[in-house]
């Protein structure tokens, strides 16, 4: 390369860099967020929240691409295939929720322990390593879509297991990052003070890191393979994540509504007992059709029938609290998203789950769009909502604990974002429910799970229409997301009133 050419490239690169820096500075001046309001620990938390929001966008984007391919199968064919879009859609969801949960824990860690985070530097390094690894994994998914299934592909390209496709090096990285996170939590509580919330959180993190290991080894028998794979998929989601959300919710109820610690902790223990009591052996409903012994039909059916009980407990407790407290709170969007969590969890996990969980009907519904319908409402209702509530808690403090209650400026934005996101997800859920019903009826029951039955069901008008409606409601979800981001960047800007300090009742 000649000197003039390389100088030109350098100058262009410098110009692009300067332009980007200027744009970033303009953006910072526009959002007017002041990090001096946040402790170092909370600054780390908002880094996690920022990446969570970006990955939330990736989830919606790749979901929309996959939804479009259901209607136009030739769309992006051999450029960005359906299997890749679906994989990134689901992986992005899992990872953005993890980023959100880790961020939420870092957010309350110093407050709860009364001490500064012990390994803050390590925590920051882990954050950048995790973010870099996720970026690299997604880039590899996109750039190497097809290739031979060798040991090297397992280590560097794609592990090939549904939902946990990350290559082995990234798996190891995830465990290391979770261990650093675990160290930070335990060491910080040890330096400061322990509490019931701290104890439950610590035990839950042991399970969170430990169970992931079950998805990192292979067995040659497909039944054994699936048996362990479900430990990650089911036990993460229906046990460790639920408990993690219980911990996050417990802390936020104290801070948002001033509920007494003793009450919150007692109920956290009760909920954990109910969750584990029903959720661990509820795992059996995934063992119905993978070649495990027949007793799993009974175990899975029985414990699945018990799984809605913690949700019913929540209903009774909510009414009790509503009868004894007049809700006064200075962060309406966060409270609204927490209420959305209670409803979303009840409908998505409780009703949509139980409708098709008993083996007598599940024999026809498993693996159809019915599962996708349940998955969309349950994941959004139980997990996305609590993360969004925390984003609003964070932004309030980032602006210096400003008033975000009644009479706030531009409150329509968060209300519309709430309505569009919930309406969009509910619409997709119902569209997928119709598609799943048709599939289980025609493909499974009438045509006996044959290839012919599969295609008959896929081409049936009710399936096709349902896919059209799913795309429509997916676009509604995207609109809600854009509004949510706009609101998060602007809410409380220019607000001079301070939120009142919430004290325990």
């Amino acid at each position: 390369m000649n000197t003039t050419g390389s100088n030109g490239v350098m100058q262009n690169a410098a110009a692009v860099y300067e332009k980007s820096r200027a744009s970033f500075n303009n953006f910072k001046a526009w959002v007017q967020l002041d990090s001096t309001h946040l402790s170092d620990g909370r600054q780390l938390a908002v880094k996690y929240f920022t990446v969570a929001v970006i990955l939330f966008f990736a989830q919606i984007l790749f979901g929309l691409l996959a939804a479009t391919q259901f209607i136009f199968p030739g769309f992006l064919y051999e450029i960005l295939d359906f299997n890749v879009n679906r994989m990134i859609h689901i992986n992005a969801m899992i990872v953005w929720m993890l980023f959100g949960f880790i961020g939420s824990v870092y957010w309350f860690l110093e407050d709860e322990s009364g001490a500064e985070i012990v390994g803050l530097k390590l925590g920051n390094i882990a954050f950048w390593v995790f973010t870099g690894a996720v970026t690299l994994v997604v880039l590899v998914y996109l750039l190497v879509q097809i290739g031979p299934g060798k040991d090297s592909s397992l280590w560097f390209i794609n592990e090939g297991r549904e939902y946990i496709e990350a290559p082995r090096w990234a798996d190891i990285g995830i465990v290391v990052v979770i261990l650093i996170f675990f160290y930070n939590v335990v060491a910080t509580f040890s330096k400061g003070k322990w509490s019931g919330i701290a104890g439950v959180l610590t035990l839950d993190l042991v399970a969170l890191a430990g169970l992931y290991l079950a998805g990192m080894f292979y067995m040659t028998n497909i039944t054994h393979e699936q048996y362990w794979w479900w430990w990650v998929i089911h036990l993460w989601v229906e046990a460790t994540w639920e408990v993690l959300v219980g911990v996050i919710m417990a802390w936020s109820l104290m801070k948002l509504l001033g509920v007494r610690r003793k009450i919150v902790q007692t109920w956290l223990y009760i909920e954990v007992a109910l969750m584990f009591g029903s959720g661990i052996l509820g795992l059996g409903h995934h063992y119905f059709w993978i070649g495990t012994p027949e007793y799993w039909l009974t175990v899975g059916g029985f414990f699945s029938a018990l799984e809605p009980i913690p949700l019913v407990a929540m209903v009774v407790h909510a009414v009790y609290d509503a009868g004894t407290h007049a809700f006064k709170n200075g962060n309406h969007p966060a409270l609204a998203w927490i209420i959305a969590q209670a409803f979303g969890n009840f409908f998505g996990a409780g009703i949509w789950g139980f409708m098709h969980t008993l083996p007598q009907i599940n024999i026809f519904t498993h693996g159809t769009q019915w599962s996708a319908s349940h998955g969309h409402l349950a994941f959004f209702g139980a997990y996305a909502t609590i993360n969004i509530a925390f984003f609003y808690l964070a932004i309030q403090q980032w602006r210096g604990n400003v008033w975000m209650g009644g009479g706030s400026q531009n409150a329509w934005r968060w209300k519309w974002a709430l309505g569009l996101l919930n309406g969009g997800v509910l619409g997709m859920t119902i569209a997928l429910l119709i598609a799943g019903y048709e599939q289980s009826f025609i493909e499974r029951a009438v045509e006996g799970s044959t290839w012919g039955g599969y295609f008959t069901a896929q081409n049936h008008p009710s399936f096709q229409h349902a896919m059209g409606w799913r795309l429509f409601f997916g676009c509604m979800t995207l609109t809600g997301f854009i509004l949510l981001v706009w609101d998060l960047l602007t809410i409380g800007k220019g607000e001079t009133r301070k939120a009142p300090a919430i004290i325990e009742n």
Partner: protein
Amino acid sequence: MIEPVALEDFFITFFSSALIILAGASYALLFAWSKVNPNFRIKIAAYISYAILIISVAELTQAAQFQGYWLIISFVMAIGYFFAPIGIWHLCVKTHADQDLIKIKEDI
């Protein structure tokens, strides 16, 4: 051994399953509300919800062809959904021992 749901019973199976959870939650909600606001009509509404739950359990039992030990699930749902809200209510009262509106109303 399980007997898969018959084709004509698909809808009733989904519908009765969903109704069990909905009626269970309505019963829990109305039961708790009748404690906070001791009104006879709310209590009656709670028991109507429970009656709907029982009918739904019976429908599901028939549609899903429960037999033998599978009938235990129906029995547990019928008993469990009745007593769970009562038990949880007592837990609420005990864990909030020194807060009072409820106590006052119950005393009345």
